[in-house]
């Protein structure tokens, strides 16, 4: 089992992980306009969790995650596939992008869209797949 006894790594990881995950969310949401997007954000998040895995061990990582990686990529695939369905109701081809602009009292204008939903799906699939691979292999040691 890969397990580091380094106190510095433990402590640093505890603090880094939330930051990295937050950063990945930032990359995900701005992806449509600036460099970023589901793939990159997913890789960042997966990398962060992999670091946690190396600092601690598989069971504690699983506990921290609360969900199995398989559920993550399953959910991601579902989200991505479902994001194409609304277009069907409007008589457009599957996966045609749809946009809704919503006004919120405090946040101002927020653009909701099926591509965003799809990108979140990609994000979850990347996290889930990469973590599944890494955790399976780490467990197999």
């Amino acid at each position, binding site marked *: 089992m890969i397990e580091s006894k380094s106190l510095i790594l433990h402590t640093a990881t505890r603090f880094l992980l939330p930051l990295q995950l937050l950063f990945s969310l930032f990359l995900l949401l701005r992806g449509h306009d600036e*460099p970023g997007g589901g*793939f990159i954000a997913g*890789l960042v998040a997966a990398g962060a969790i992999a670091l946690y895995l190396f600092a601690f061990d598989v069971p504690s990582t699983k506990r921290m995650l609360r969900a199995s990686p398989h559920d993550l990529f399953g959910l991601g695939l579902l989200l991505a596939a479902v994001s194409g369905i609304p277009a069907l109701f409007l008589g457009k081809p599957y996966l045609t992008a749809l946009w809704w602009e919503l006004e919120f009292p405090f946040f101002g204008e927020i653009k909701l869209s099926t591509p965003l939903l799809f990108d979140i799906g990609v994000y979850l699939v*990347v996290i889930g*797949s990469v973590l599944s691979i890494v955790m399976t*292999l780490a467990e197999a040691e």
Partner: protein
Amino acid sequence: MEPLMAYVVGGLFAASIYMILRRSIVKLVIGLILLSNAANLLIFTASGLTRGAPPLIPEGAQFPDPMPAADPLPQALILTAIVIAFGVLAFAVVLINRAYEILGVDDLDLMKETDA
């Protein structure tokens, strides 16, 4: 720059092909890593190389600045290719690892028999 990159890509291909033709399974893995890089660069170079003009549009504008920006299409293709190459590599590595564990050999020539 493109002609130089053409030679670089050729070099990468040559190195990767040489490695996947080896009998040692570990070398095969290295060959696969190099091969995916070479293929990505091939697509990247084929559509032309542009300096300092990413396919990003400034806020409020309709077109990238400066124009012409780099071709976004191959970039999108390569982006997914990079991630998938990782998945495939993981699969290949585990497959090879499994074959090694079962057969106890790392010589591809000795892996001819399918029923172990």
